[in-house]
């Protein structure tokens, strides 16, 4: 999802850089408060871990391979503000030292993968986890919650990315949004499964380590998580809002592309300001929204199954003598 330079316009890049700098400043402050003097070493070495984890490919069907993004996993294990600083460090190094992702679009990449990805993911994780104490990771729920959060966060980051591209007028907003979200709804499945596997392995290997890692995340007050999450959602809505406007040129192409009858197309184009009120397009959007909601529910169900399948079996109680 690293956007190279050349796609984003200068104003969009500068705006994104401003937003990410503000978020990074707040998160650095917060991370220092949570971790104290250990913060620097913790951020540096866990960033090395995330970077290395991103380099390990796993095979996906058809000879292709995928890798972890790791933002949500980092947010769950370290707390969202530490995860933001960690992901930023990874992105800066990837850009400036290894030439991966653009320099001008670094701000946008940080916004997508270091701000939106961990924060949306963590908010969803806490939402699904509900009242269960986050420091006591037991049973299927944390794994299912992490899987679903990883998928949602990947899609949200892709939508933000699409918004940035659309604001830079790369192509018609609807085309970009559907392409990015469509592709990343599939990529997100890989992210969800591998994150769930990693959390399950961690709980199995070192439950006390996860508890300790989780406790630094659990010291984060719910409000301080939900508020940035809401802000991120609002930013997302602002980015996506251009999609609601009709963009005659692009819309025409989309309409032709989808094979909607020319009569409806001309109707929608003759009334560009009443884009949503047009019956043909309106029901089209509604169908898309319905399909999206159904897909999300399906993924949620799959995540529950995954959580149940991966949750560690209850340890046999060795303190009781076996009954005759």
């Amino acid at each position, binding site marked *: 999802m*690293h*956007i*190279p*330079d*050349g*796609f984003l316009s*200068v104003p969009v890049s500068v705006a994104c850089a401003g937003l990410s700098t503000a978020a990074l400043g707040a998160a*650095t402050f917060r991370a220092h408060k949570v971790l104290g*003097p*250990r913060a*620097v*070493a*913790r*951020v*540096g*070495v*866990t*960033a*090395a*871990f995330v*970077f*290395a*984890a991103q*380099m*390990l*490919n*796993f095979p996906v069907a058809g000879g292709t*391979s995928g890798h972890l993004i790791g933002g949500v996993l980092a947010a769950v294990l370290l707390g969202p503000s530490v995860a933001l*600083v960690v992901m930023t*460090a990874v992105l800066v*190094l990837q*850009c*400036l*030292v*290894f*030439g991966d992702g*653009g*320099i*001008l679009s670094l701000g946008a990449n940080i916004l997508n993968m270091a701000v939106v990805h961990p924060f949306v993911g963590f908010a969803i994780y806490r939402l699904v986890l509900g009242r269960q104490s986050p420091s006591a990771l037991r049973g299927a729920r944390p794994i299912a919650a992490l899987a679903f959060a990883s998928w949602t966060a990947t899609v949200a980051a892709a939508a933000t990315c699409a918004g940035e*591209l659309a604001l830079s007028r*790369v*192509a*018609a907003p609807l*085309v*970009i949004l559907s392409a990015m979200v469509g592709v990343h709804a599939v990529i997100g499945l890989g992210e969800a499964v*591998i994150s769930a*596997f*990693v*959390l399950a*392995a*961690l709980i199995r*290997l*070192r439950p006390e*380590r996860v508890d300790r*890692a989780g406790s630094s995340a659990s010291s984060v007050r719910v409000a301080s998580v939900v508020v940035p999450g809401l802000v991120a959602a609002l930013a997302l809505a602002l980015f996506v809002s251009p999609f609601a406007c009709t963009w005659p*040129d*692009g819309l025409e*192409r*989309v309409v032709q*592309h989808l094979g909607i009858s020319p009569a409806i197309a001309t109707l929608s184009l003759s009334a560009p300001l009443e884009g949503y009120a047009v019956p043909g397009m309106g029901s089209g959007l509604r169908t898309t929204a319905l399909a999206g909601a159904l897909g999300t529910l399906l993924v949620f169900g799959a995540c529950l199954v995954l959580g149940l399948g991966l949750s560690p079996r209850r340890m046999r109680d060795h303190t009781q003598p076996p009954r005759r």
Partner: protein
Amino acid sequence: MSGTHLLRSYAHLDSPIHRVRAGTKLLITLLFVVGVVLVPVAHPLWTCAAIALLVAVVLAARLPLSAFLARLALSQPFVLGVAVLALFQGRGLAVFAALALKSTACVAAVQLFAHVTPFYDLLEVLRRARVPSALVLALALLHRYLFVVLEESRRMHRARTARTWQASGWSTWKSLASVIAVSFVRSTARAERISIAMRARGWS
């Protein structure tokens, strides 16, 4: 287990370009990218001129050309994937060509910068640009331990593969996941040790 070639850097070579100060190079790269982004779609010749300039600098920097091009080709799927979306609009082909050309030029510029700038010079630039010192130190630690963690997880993965008879499908994912999990546990323990060592030597 691909990826080593992604981390190969030619910043240790020597050429007139390598000897330019890192801050100057960063500024020039940024200006170059902004310049290319600002070229309107109707004037592709300007982008071509920029690419010609870039090729001259790559040659002057004496970078191994085949490695440079191979690395550039790796970025093409995303570039072309996004540029193709531009086909769905008026004058689609012109926009597609302009976007692909511009973006390739920018990717090459960033690659060039990465290959001619030693990492510690870059840290010095960041420090002088008033990036918070904690962040610069975290970046230094990240670069220092990246190869350690990567090598460690590769070794674990290789050991695991050697002991698994023809792993495929889910078991590959499972073994990779346990490698990542163990790698995380080791990283937190290592961070703890490093921080204790730093404080023992008077860092605060």
